[in-house]
């Protein structure tokens, strides 16, 4: 065990793999992922659909589908969540771990008022009495920027706009002062002007509460301005991980570069062809022997197709990557 002076990450994901049985064979949704998040820090997890980012968050929350198999350890404040009994986990969710999902309509109960849903959480987890819980619920709604909170408490989810519903979902997630908040594509279903407001709100509450936060998104634009560290996932693995400014200043992994290049830029002229990534991700039930990105990578050679590059930091500069031909280094060689 580390000494008391060393800061221990609040969350440490250690060699986590998630395997789902399918009719076509085992699907390795998450493949030996290691990640750490400290209190007061925000980690961005970026990747396209099917890269395993959501399954990874489910593994942290211990909300995996029943048939899924989890290997590795999910250490939260020194405890392995994977080995905790169901009841202990239930007590952790809320006061320790909380989550905000993409679609607030599916995470809120449509037949209960907003007030009932927040008050219930406060009563169950914090043991507040009815009047105190109602007062606190209104305070929470005000904190997440909902005008006229007392009236909102009496409304049902369908009476609110998408942005307001997401604010309510955030208020519920924050209600028990969690130490780790997982926001899984929290703004993907929202309009761009509302997205900016919700990301601001999450960032403000994260700082104010000194929470650890994992922001999961498909959008490199979202993580660029709002995270301390970024992990890029491809085909179930973390393929690059670095402090945010360092990642954008000098990405090493060709996939990260290609992903960034494929985003239409506001400052490029109309009708500029986009550097698209040819092909698509490999079938997750048929893992490749080498690098999963090799079939789409313009730098790939035989070594890439035969041997899987490990995630490491060979430059000892704080950027981890899983690539035999990292960018810039390759250019210099």
């Amino acid at each position, binding site marked *: 065990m580390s000494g008391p002076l060393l800061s221990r990450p609040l969350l440490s994901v250690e060699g986590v793999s998630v395997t789902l049985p399918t009719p076509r064979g085992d699907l390795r949704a998450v493949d030996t992922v290691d990640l750490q998040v400290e209190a007061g820090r925000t980690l961005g997890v970026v990747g396209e*659909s099917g890269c395993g980012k959501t399954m990874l968050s489910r593994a942290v929350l211990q909300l995996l589908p029943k048939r899924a198999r989890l290997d590795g350890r999910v250490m939260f404040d020194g405890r392995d969540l994977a080995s905790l009994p169901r009841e202990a986990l239930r007590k952790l969710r809320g006061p320790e771990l909380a989550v905000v999902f993409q679609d607030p309509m599916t995470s809120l109960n449509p037949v209960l008022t907003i007030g009932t849903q927040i008050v219930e959480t406060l009563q169950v987890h914090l043991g507040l009495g009815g009047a105190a819980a109602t007062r606190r619920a209104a305070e929470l709604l005000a904190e997440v920027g909902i005008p006229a909170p007392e009236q909102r408490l009496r409304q049902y989810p369908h009476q609110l706009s998408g942005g307001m519903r997401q604010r309510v979902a955030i208020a519920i997630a924050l209600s028990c002062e969690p130490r780790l908040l997982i926001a899984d594509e929290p703004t993907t279903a929202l309009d761009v002007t509302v997205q900016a407001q919700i990301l601001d709100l999450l960032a403000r509450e994260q700082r104010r509460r000194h929470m650890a936060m994992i922001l999961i998104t498909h959008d490199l634009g979202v993580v660029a301005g709002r995270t301390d560290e970024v992990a890029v996932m491809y085909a179930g693995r973390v393929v690059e991980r670095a402090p945010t400014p360092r990642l*954008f200043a000098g990405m090493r992994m060709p996939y990260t570069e290609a992903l*960034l290049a494929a985003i239409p830029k*506001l400052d490029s002229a109309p009708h500029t062809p986009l550097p698209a990534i040819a092909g698509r991700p490999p079938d997750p039930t048929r893992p490749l022997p080498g690098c999963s990105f090799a079939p789409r990578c313009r730098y790939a050679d035989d070594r890439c197709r035969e041997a899987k590059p490990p995630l490491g930091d060979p430059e000892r500069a704080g950027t981890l990557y899983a690539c035999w031909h990292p960018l810039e280094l390759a250019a210099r060689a």
Partner: protein
Amino acid sequence: MSEALLEVENLTVEYAVGGRSLFAVSDVSLSVARGETLGLVGESGCGKSTLGRAVLQLRRPTGGKVFFDGTELTGLAAEKMRLMRRRLQLIFQDPIASLNPRRRIGDIVAEPLIIAGVTDRAERDRRVREVMTAVGLDPEVVAGRLPHEFSGGQCQRICIARALILEPELVICDEPVSALDVSIRAQILNLLEEMKRRYGLTLLFIAHDLAVVKAVSDRIAVMYLGKLCEVGPTEQLFARPVHPYTALLLEAIPVPDPTVRPATNVAVGEPPSPLDPPSGCRFRTRCPRADARCAAEVPVLREIVVGQVAACHHPLTEG
């Protein structure tokens, strides 16, 4: 501008909602020149998709006129409209839902030809092979398969092939890449550009993502709550938006560069309900420049700078 292929005049589309009228599109006028791509942007509920459908008469407008190549579509008899539809095609957001899951890809792509009365089997096969190859699909491999065997990006290629097989003049693309991943999105945007050149298409490109719209459009029209805010040439509008809503949309886009601090509190509140739009300028409740005049008087579209029109009492101009 050269000859207008599509002209929309004072178009209004009304829905009845619980005894009240919802004006999804309210007095919108615009034109698209032959060979041009007009990007239509706005947030959800602004009426951009309804406008696209009203152009095709899939939803009959309650007011105004639509002209296609000089022919008025509004009020055209059903049979004549059916013939006209060969020249106008639509591509949707969800490519998987747009394909019949029980039919083979080859039959799906050939169907418009059958409806159009192309009876020669060999001729149909030839054209199916040609258009599939054009959109980057191998007809030998693809034609016999079913939609579920394909990813979202491949399904969108199939939808594009189906839309192009009758060699239409105008294609309305309604959020054609919103459901796709970043890497696939770029492939489809490039394909649409290539198809536009190859088939000499005119595009009405509807999307909520300004960066996506910029990549393909010659001109941009911005909608808010059923009305046009601003119309202008793409680069000019991005460099110098004159409507405060356009400026707000531009600022809100997350930029993939950590040295650019995200603009904070750019947007005040959320779009109001289209059932109960604000008086005067519909954007005034969220606009930093709004005053009493904006509540009293509906701003009309007028030229603010050369080539750029906006409906605003207090446009963003120098000085």
